[in-house]
C-alpha cells in the first residue's frame, strides 16, 4: 500500500516512537555541544580577547595559537571534520559511530570555536573605558572578566549563544552519516531515502518550531537584561 494513502495522524502515531527517539538523540548531541560551548568556548573567546594586542593579558603567542585553532576548525567543511575526527573519537570513547555520544565530539568542537568567536566579538564591543575603570580600581584579572566585562557584555553574550545554538542544530542534522541519529537524520531517512515526504515535513516542522522558540527565548532574555 502506498504510504501516502494512510491518514497523516495514523502515520504520525506509527512513527511517533521513532520520532521521539530521534529527538532524544538530538537532545544528547545538542546538550553536549552546549555544555562545551559554555565550559570551553566562553573561556577560549575570553582568552582571544584578553591576549590580543593592546589588551590586559597581551600575549601574541597565546593569541596566535588560539586564533589559528579556531580558524582551522571553523574553516573545515563540517562533514569532513566529522570524518577526520573518527580515529580520535575511537581512541577517546571506544567507538566512533552508531551512537549520539560518539557523534557529540565533533559537535562539541564546532560549538567551542563557534561560540568563542561570538564571545570575542561581544567583548570587543565593550567600551574601552570599562577596562580602564577596572584597572584603576586595582581589579584582578578574574574580577575584570567577571565583574566588568561579562556584566557589560551579557546581553550580547546571550545573543551570540542563541545564534551559535541555531547553527548547531543545523550542524547536528549531518550526524546521521556516522550513525549519530537525531531529528535531522530521521527526516533524511524517511523523506529522502524512503520517499515518505509527509514524515519528513513533520520532522522539519519540529526543527523550525524549536529554532523559533530558542531564538525568541534568547532575544527576550537578552533584551530583558540589557540596561544600556
Amino acid at each position: 500500500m502506498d504510504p501516502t494513502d494512510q491518514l497523516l495522524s495514523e502515520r504520525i502515531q506509527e512513527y511517533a516512537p521513532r520520532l521521539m527517539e530521534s529527538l532524544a538523540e538530538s537532545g544528547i548531541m545538542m546538550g553536549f555541544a552546549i555544555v562545551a560551548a559554555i565550559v570551553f568556548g566562553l573561556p577560549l573567546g575570553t582568552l582571544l580577547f584578553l591576549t590580543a594586542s593592546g589588551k590586559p593579558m597581551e600575549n601574541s603567542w597565546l593569541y596566535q595559537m588560539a586564533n589559528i585553532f579556531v580558524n582551522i576548525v571553523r574553516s573545515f567543511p563540517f562533514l569532513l571534520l566529522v570524518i577526520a575526527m573518527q580515529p580520535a573519537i575511537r581512541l577517546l570513547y571506544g567507538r566512533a559511530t552508531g551512537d549520539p555520544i560518539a557523534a557529540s565530539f565533533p559537535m562539541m568542537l564546532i560549538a567551542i570555536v563557534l561560540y568563542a568567536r561570538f564571545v570575542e566579538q561581544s567583548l570587543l564591543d565593550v567600551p574601552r573605558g570599562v577596562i580602564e575603570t577596572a584597572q584603576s580600581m586595582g581589579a584582578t584579572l578574574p574580577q575584570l572578566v567577571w565583574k566588568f566585562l561579562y556584566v557589560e557584555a551579557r546581553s550580547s553574550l546571550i545573543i551570540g549563544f542563541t545564534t551559535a545554538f541555531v547553527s548547531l542544530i543545523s550542524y547536528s542534522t549531518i550526524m546521521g552519516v556516522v550513525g549519530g541519529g537525531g531529528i535531522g537524520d530521521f527526516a533524511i531517512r524517511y523523506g529522502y531515502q524512503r520517499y515518505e515526504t509527509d514524515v519528513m515535513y513533520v520532522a522539519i516542522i519540529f526543527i523550525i518550531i524549536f529554532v523559533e522558540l530558542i531564538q525568541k527565548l534568547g532575544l527576550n532574555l537578552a533584551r530583558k537584561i540589557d540596561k544600556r
Partner: protein
Amino acid sequence: MITLDQVSKSFQNNSGEFKAIDAVTFTIQDHERFGIIGESGAGKSTLLRFINALETPDEGAVMVDGKNIHQLNKSALRLYQKQVAMIFQEFNLLNNKTVEENIRLPLELHAYPETIPMETVLDFVGLRDKRGQYPKDLSGGQKQRVGIARALITRPKILLCDEPTSALDLGTTKEIVDVLKKAHDTFGMTIVLVTHELEVIKELCTRAAILENGMLTDVIKIEPPKNKKSYSSYRKRALEVLSHGSD
C-alpha cells in the same frame, strides 16, 4: 606626597616613536588640589595614569610617600591602588548596573579599612532618589556624580580626575566643581585634576602644572577667585565672545 622625578614615556605612532612625556618633574603635597593643564595630546592623561600605575614610565620614577610605585610587588601595588580613586571624562559607569551597584563596585573588589555608608555617599552627591536607576536614565552631571560617589566611598587618599567636566555644559561643570570642592573640604584627599578648561582649574586648584608637547613648562600658583561670581555664566561668556570679544 607625590613626586614625579624625570619621568619620560614614548609611544609608537605611524611615523615611528615619539616622546609623549619628556623628563617631567614636579611634586604634589598631601591634601593639595593640583591641576595639570595643557592642550589635547599634551600628555596630561598619561601623566595622571602614572600616578595610579595604569601607565609605566620608560624612565624616571613616581614616588608616593617615599616609595617608587612602579617597583612595588603585585600585592603592594594593589594595596596602593586601593588608596587611589579615579574619575573620568566619559564617567565610565557600568551600564548594566544601577547607580547604587555602580557606587558599591570598588567594595566588591577589595576589603577597604574605612568606607562611607551608602546612604551618606548618596546624599553627599545628591542622588538618593536615583539609587535604583540605570545610567542610561541619568544626565551627564548625574553620571559624573555617580563616578564621584564611586570614588569617594572607599575614602581614597588620592583622587585623580581626568577631564571630569569636559563632557558637560557650563552649568553642570559648576555643579561638579562644587561637589569636588565639597569632597575636598570634607575628606581632605589629595586631588590631581587634569583638564584643558582653565576656569575649572582656577576654581578648584591651588597650583597647576602647564604641559606642552609632553614637556613641563611651568608650575604656577593659582590666585583664588576674588568672588564667587568669577566663574562666568554661559550668558556672560556668550556676551564676551560674541559681542565684545575678539573682533
